[in-house]
C-alpha cells in the first residue's frame, strides 16, 4: 500500500468540509433540479445560432461554394481557419485527461470531465469545415477508402489532407470512448439516487448496468491508463498532421519544419483558454467552486503562459528563418505578413498571443477570476487570428502578381462559423444540464489525500518524528 499522504503545503483540490455523500450531492444537484432561466436563455440562444449556421450552410450547398469569399488565389479562407481553430481548442481536453493522467497531476480530476466534453464538441465543430469546403458535399465519402465502382479508385494515402481525415476521425472516436468510459460509473451514481422513473430508466441505459465491483474498477483503471497512453501520442499527432496540411506544401510561409511543435503548442494554448472561459462560468453557475478551485484555474493559467511563450518564440523564429534562409519569396512573404495589407491581423495575433499572456507571470492575476476570464477570450481571439494569418497572408499574393488579391469573407462563411458556436454551446448546455460536470468517482478517489478537511487532519501529524509519522500514515487503513 502506498503512502496515503499529501502535505498541506500543496493546495487542496477539494475545498470545504466534504464527505463522499456530499461530493455526490454537490455534483448531481444541477442534474436533478429544474434548469434555471439562465440555462434556458443560453440554450435557446445557442439553438438560434445553430439554426442560422444551418441556414448559411444550406445556402452554400444550394448555390455552391461561390457564395463564399474564397477565390482562385485564396483557396482556403475562414473555413480552414475555423477548422484549425476548433481542432486546436479540442487539444486541451485530451491534454488534461490523458497527458496529465500520465504525469500524475492530481488537479486534473476537477476539470477533466468538462474539458473532455469540450474536446468532443470542438472536434465536432471542426469536422464541419473541411466537409462543407468540399463544395459538392454529397461526394464527401470519396475521402474514405471504400471499395467502389469507380474502377476501384482509392484516395491518395500520401496526401496530408487524407492523413487529416484519419487523424480527426480517430481523435474524435478515441476522445469519445475515453470520455464515456469515465462517465459510465457516474451515470450509475445518478441512476441509483434517481427519484423519478424516467430518470432511473434513462440513466440506467446510459450507465450500461454498472455496479462497481472490485474487478470492474480494476479493469476501469487499466482501461483509463491505456487509453491515456494512446491518447497522448494521438493528441500530438493530430495537430502535427494538421500542420502537415500546410508544411508539406511549397508555399512561402507554410513550408517550414517548425510547424508541428509550433501548432501543438498553439493548440494547447488556445484549448486551455477555452477551458478557462467555460469553467469560470460553469463553476459559478453550478456552484462548483469547491471542486474547480482557484488553484485549478491558476494551474491552467500557468500552462497558458508557458504555451503562449512557446508560440511567441515560434513567431519570432519564423521571421528569423525567413531572413536567414535567403529565399526571396520567403522573405517577401513575411515582410507582407507583418507590414502588408493584412498587417492588422498579424499585430492582433502578436498582441493577443504573445504580449497578453505575459500578465500571467503575476500570481495575483493568475488567481483573479475576472482577469482570467477576459484574458482567456483575448487568447481565443488571438489564436483565431494566428490561423487566419498563416492561411490567408501566405496565399493572397502568390507567385503570379496578376492573381494577387484581397480576401474577405461573405455572410455565408461568417454564418457557418457562428453556426458552429451554436453547435458547440448547444452541446455544452445539454452536457452541463444532463451530465455530471465533474468526475464524481475521481473526486472521491482523491478526496482523502487532497481534500481540504482531510489535509487539515494531517497537520498535527506533520509535527511528529519521521518514524512515528510513517507508522501512523502507512497503517491508516
Amino acid at each position: 500500500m502506498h503512502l496515503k499522504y499529501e502535505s498541506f503545503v500543496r493546495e487542496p483540490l477539494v475545498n470545504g468540509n466534504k464527505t463522499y455523500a456530499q461530493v455526490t450531492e454537490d455534483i448531481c444537484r444541477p442534474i436533478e433540479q429544474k434548469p434555471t432561466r439562465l440555462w434556458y436563455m443560453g440554450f435557446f440562444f445557442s439553438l438560434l445560432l445553430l439554426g442560422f449556421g444551418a441556414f448559411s450552410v444550406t445556402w452554400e450547398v444550394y448555390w455552391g461554394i461561390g457564395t463564399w469569399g474564397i477565390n482562385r488565389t485564396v483557396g482556403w479562407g475562414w473555413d480552414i481557419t475555423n477548422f484549425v481553430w476548433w481542432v486546436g481548442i479540442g487539444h486541451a481536453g485530451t491534454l488534461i485527461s490523458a497527458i496529465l493522467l500520465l504525469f500524475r497531476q492530481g488537479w486534473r480530476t476537477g476539470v477533466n470531465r468538462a474539458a473532455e466534453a469540450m474536446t468532443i464538441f470542438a472536434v465536432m465543430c471542426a469536422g464541419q469545415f473541411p466537409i462543407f469546403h468540399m463544395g459538392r458535399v454529397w461526394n464527401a465519402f470519396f475521402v474514405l477508402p471504400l471499395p467502389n465502382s469507380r474502377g476501384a479508385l482509392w484516395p491518395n494515402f500520401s496526401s496530408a489532407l487524407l492523413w487529416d481525415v484519419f487523424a480527426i476521425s480517430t481523435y474524435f472516436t478515441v476522445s469519445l470512448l475515453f470520455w464515456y468510459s469515465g462517465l459510465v460509473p457516474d451515470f450509475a451514481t445518478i441512476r441509483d439516487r434517481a427519484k423519478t422513473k424516467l430518470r432511473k430508466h434513462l440513466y440506467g441505459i446510459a450507465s450500461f448496468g454498472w455496479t462497481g465491483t472490485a474487478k470492474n474498477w480494476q479493469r476501469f483503471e487499466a482501461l483509463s491508463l491505456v487509453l491515456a497512453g494512446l491518447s497522448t501520442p494521438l493528441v500530438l499527432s493530430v495537430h502535427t498532421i494538421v500542420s502537415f496540411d500546410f508544411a508539406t506544401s511549397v508555399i512561402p510561409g507554410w513550408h517550414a519544419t517548425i510547424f508541428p511543435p509550433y501548432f501543438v503548442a498553439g493548440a494547447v494554448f488556445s484549448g486551455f483558454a477555452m477551458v478557462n472561459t467555460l469553467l469560470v462560468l460553469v463553476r459559478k453557475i453550478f456552484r462548483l467552486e469547491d471542486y474547480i478551485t482557484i488553484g485549478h484555474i491558476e494551474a491552467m493559467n500557468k500552462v497558458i503562459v508557458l504555451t503562449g511563450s512557446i508560440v511567441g518564440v515560434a513567431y519570432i523564429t519564423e521571421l528569423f528563418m525567413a531572413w536567414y534562409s535567403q529565399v526571396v519569396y520567403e522573405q517577401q512573404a513575411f515582410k507582407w505578413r507583418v507590414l502588408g495589407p493584412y498587417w492588422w491581423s498579424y499585430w492582433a495575433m502578436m498582441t493577443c498571443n504573445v504580449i497578453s499572456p505575459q500578465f500571467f507571470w503575476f500570481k495575483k492575476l493568475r488567481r483573479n477570476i475576472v482577469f482570467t476570464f477576459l484574458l482567456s477570450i483575448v487568447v481565443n481571439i488571438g489564436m483565431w487570428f494566428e490561423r487566419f494569418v498563416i492561411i490567408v497572408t501566405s496565399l493572397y499574393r502568390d507567385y503570379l502578381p496578376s492573381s494577387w488579391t484581397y480576401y474577405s469573407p461573405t455572410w455565408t462563411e461568417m454564418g457557418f462559423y457562428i453556426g458552429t458556436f451554436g453547435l458547440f454551446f448547444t452541446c455544452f448546455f445539454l452536457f452541463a444540464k444532463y451530465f455530471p460536470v465533474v468526475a464524481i468517482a475521481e473526486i472521491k478517489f482523491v478526496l482523502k489525500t487532497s481534500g481540504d478537511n482531510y489535509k487539515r487532519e494531517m497537520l498535527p501529524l506533520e509535527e511528529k518524528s519521521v518514524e512515528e509519522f510513517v507508522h501512523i500514515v502507512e497503517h491508516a487503513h
Partner: protein
Amino acid sequence: MAIKKFAVACYDDEAVLFPAVDKVRNSGYKLHDVYTPFPVHGLDVALGQKETDLHIAGFCFGITGTATALGFMSWIFTKDWPINYGGKPFFNLPSFIPITFELTVMFAAVGMVLTYCYLNQIMPGVKKHIFHPRQTDDLFVIAMEITEGTSEVELIDFMKSTGAIETNVQIAEEGWWYGRWDKEEAYQKQLA
C-alpha cells in the same frame, strides 16, 4: 443466471473495509463480490485478484490496426493501383506512417473498450442487482453468498463484527447479458 441468497454488509469507510475483507477471506464463508463507489487502490490485491489482461488485448488490437493499415496501403500502391508521383517509389513507407499510427490507435482503443464492456458485462440495457442504492454513492458493500450449509444468523453476526454499519439478507440474480435477467424480476412479481 441462478437466483441466490446473499448476506449484504455495508461499510462507510475504506479504512474499515480493508480489515473486513481480510477477515471475510479468512472466515471460510463464500464471498460473492465487493462493490465500491470509486476505485479503491489495493482492494484487488486484498481480494487476491490477478492483474487484468486488458492491456494485452489492447496491444493485440493495436497490432491488428498496424497490420491492416500497412497491408492495405501497400497493396493498393504496389499492386492494385500504383500511381507515379513525380517518379517517387510506389512503396513509399514514410508517407504511410501517419495513417498507420492513427489506425493503430483507433483499433486499440475501440477493441479495448469493447473487450472491457464484454469482460465487465456492461452494455446499454443490461440490468444488474443493486445490493444497496448507496453503493455508487458513499457505501462500500460486501455481498456474501448464503450457500446451503451456511447459517444465515451466524453469517450476519460475523459481518456485523467486522464493522458493518448495515446488514441484511437479499435474494438476487447475478446480472448478465441481455434477456438473462428474468428470474429476479419474476421473483419480485411473485412477492408483490
